């Protein structure tokens, strides 16, 4: 063997190795979901009757995909049994995953999506894009169908305020039906507040007083998920609306050029910034996850946390028995506010969709009709202690303290419910840019309210001018 051959062989292997190593980066991964065509292969409709107003084909299979998150999947499986009883010949399968996007995106691309999807969780598919790409079925037939409990009322009329509007993107068609109903606001423990010897503060001056008193006892006023600062708007947005009216949020949603320069925005941000300046925020908060901050709150290290009504179910394991969880609307700024103290943010969660290219879209809608019935609703409320889109539906149920107080907040609010759309319409603007980039930085003390407003406006302007983002107005 001459050494020449040796060198050549080594060179060859070296080159092959280099090429192989270079091949590692992420680019290739994306194409695994390469696109393919889909043919219209929907099942025939069934016979329309009083019991079957949507004309479901009773022999067609039904495939439901549920996000397996804070609410679990049992409620959907239970509701599927009702469907099976009504259509014994139908083969119903309820599947679940935490990775909605990974599992379902290829099926959308391939034109074979399931019939009903709970599009939720960290891997939620972008609803605005799905609508824009005409991938979703219009749910109007479902909304106009009679409710499953009372044939004289349509499904539309049984829903809580804002549910239908949240499913509308352009015009009257409704593409998304949020099943859960979330009350956002300031969450606290009545027990821990009693220990400080104070009531829940209804104005910002009182809020600062309570925090000062708590600080003397070694308890922080506030904590929030510093790693995910987009929890802050849960109480900050309705606070802005209170100060300057719903118009303030409307301008933010519509990405207007002066949205973040409004006086109400300035007042709200300055009020929150004071919490940081006066040292009322739990030490280390900017580095905590939602779980870590909620646990600190459960342990009584901080009094208040901005959150949504899922928090009761999510923290169930660490909540002390005598915690007496409560939610309240954010404090008013002062008597000059445009909206009353009771004003709060409440809106739908767990968005259900029926793909336009599903095999059995009518079946998907029918299953949704079952879910929106009293029986399935009460089952959901009992299992996961959250409200549903069905108005009422909790009568006669024994509810946990947090959920009970959430219902109280809703009743007190009446029509004064605000529903900012930016979290659904512009996910990355809301979460990454304004949430993490502006609000989180300000609350950590690295940005003044003035800088925060300027930066948030800059991000808003960029989003408005970006053609690749679909724009909505309300």
């Amino acid at each position, binding site marked *: 063997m001459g050494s020449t051959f040796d060198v050549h062989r080594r060179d060859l292997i070296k080159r092959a190795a280099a090429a192989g*190593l270079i091949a590692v980066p*992420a680019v290739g991964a*994306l194409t695994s979901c390469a*696109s393919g*065509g889909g043919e219209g292969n929907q099942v025939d409709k069934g016979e329309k009757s009083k019991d079957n107003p949507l004309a479901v084909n009773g022999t067609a299979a039904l495939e439901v995909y549920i996000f397996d998150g804070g609410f679990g999947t049992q409620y959907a499986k239970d509701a599927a049994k009702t469907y099976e009883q009504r259509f014994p010949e139908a083969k119903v399968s309820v599947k679940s995953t935490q990775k909605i996007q990974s599992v379902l995106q290829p099926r959308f691309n391939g034109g074979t999506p399931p019939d009903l999807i709970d599009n939720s969780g960290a891997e939620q*598919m972008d609803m605005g894009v799905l609508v824009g790409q005409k991938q979703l079925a219009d749910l109007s037939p479902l909304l106009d169908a009679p409710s499953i409990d009372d044939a004289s009322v349509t499904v539309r009329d049984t829903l809580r305020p804002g549910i239908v509007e949240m499913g509308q993107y352009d015009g009257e068609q409704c593409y998304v039906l949020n099943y859960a109903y979330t009350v956002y606001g300031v969450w606290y423990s009545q027990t821990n507040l009693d220990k400080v010897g104070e009531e829940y503060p209804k104005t910002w001056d009182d809020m600062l007083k309570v925090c000062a008193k708590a600080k003397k006892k070694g308890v922080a006023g506030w904590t929030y998920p510093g*790693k995910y600062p987009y929890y802050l708007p849960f109480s900050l947005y309705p606070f802005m609306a209170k100060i300057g009216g719903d118009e303030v949020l409307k301008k933010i949603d519509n990405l207007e050029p002066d949205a973040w320069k409004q006086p109400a925005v300035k007042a709200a941000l300055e009020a929150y910034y004071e919490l940081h300046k006066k040292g009322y925020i739990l030490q*280390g908060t900017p*580095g905590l996850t939602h779980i870590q901050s909620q646990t600190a709150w459960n342990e009584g290290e901080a009094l208040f946390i901005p959150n949504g009504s899922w928090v009761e179910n999510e923290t169930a394991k660490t909540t002390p028995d005598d915690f007496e969880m409560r939610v309240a609307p954010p404090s008013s700024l002062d008597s000059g506010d445009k909206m009353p103290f009771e004003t709060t943010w409440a809106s739908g969660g767990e968005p259900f969709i029926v793909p336009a290219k599903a095999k059995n879209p009518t079946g998907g809608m029918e299953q949704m009709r079952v879910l929106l019935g009293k029986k399935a609703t009460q089952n959901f409320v009992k299992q996961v202690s959250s409200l549903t889109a069905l108005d009422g539906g909790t009568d006669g149920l024994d509810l946990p303290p947090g959920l009970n107080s959430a219902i109280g907040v809703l009743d007190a609010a009446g029509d004064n419910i605000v529903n900012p759309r930016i979290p659904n319409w512009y996910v990355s603007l809301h*979460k990454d840019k304004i949430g993490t980039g502006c609000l989180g930085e300000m609350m950590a003390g690295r940005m003044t309210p003035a800088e925060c407003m300027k930066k948030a406006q800059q991000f808003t302007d960029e989003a408005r001018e970006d053609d690749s983002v679909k724009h909505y107005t309300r």
Partner: protein
Amino acid sequence: MQHGKYRFIAGFLVVPLAIYLMFVVWPFIQSIYYSFTDWTGLSPEFSFVGLANYQKMLGDSDFWDALSHSLLFLALLPVITIGFALFLAFMINVGGRKRKGAAVSGVRGSSTYKIVYFFPQVLSIAIVALLFQFVYNPRNGALNAGLEGVGLGSWKPNWLGDPDLALWCVMFVLFWCTVGFFVVLFSAGMSSIPNDIYEAALLDGASRFTTFFRITLPLLWDTVQSGWIYMGILALGPEAFAVVQIMTVGPGGPANATTVLPLEVYTTAFSDAQAAYATTIGVALLIVTLTFAAIVLKLGRRERLEY
């Protein structure tokens, strides 16, 4: 002898090459193609948009943030990791005081160290990132508890919540979990260097310093070079993505302080539903990686020593 050599080699390579072309090269070409479209990733329809995505990328401050962090990872991580791994491997294999019988030996307990160093490699990167997330917890994490223990309780940094520290915290985790692998790799390389060479050096009275730079490093050069490329790709690609995604604020924050190119690809594709634009950033990542590998191979080329 030379005659028919390539045909002989090619004969063996046909099947692997075909698989490689189909599953590696073809998706690459496809994704480069997608970077010229407006594909959302959520529907099969898309149209051709030319260079629009590339134009957008050049004006995207997020992209530049991510690129600068990835380049910082690329510049620092391989140097620090491989430098430290070489030091440890040398101490384990050669650095010990002369003991009876053996001309070269490692420091006392070197075989135990080898296992200890390698241990992080056994854990999946996701687990490592999760563990360090607890370590860095500003309220009751091990790090701040330790600071309090030594009387530095008043200085309790937010670690991952502080834009000045977060990137270094992430970098340290990558260093921590990869250095052991290179210790073992270099140890293997060093143990194949003939003892006679070391004996000769010892007879000439060479110090440990000279021994390392004149004997060990030159004879280990090929291994170091492969390690360098491997580490660079880890720092650009999957490992960096995992730690940033799991550990940091946002993720990618605070205020974009820790975002890296693969994270940018991921979020653009899967939370912003702009798959085509994501492939564009992916192409940029590919170019950075290729350039890096080319530079290292070019600079590292030197006469191979035979022994």
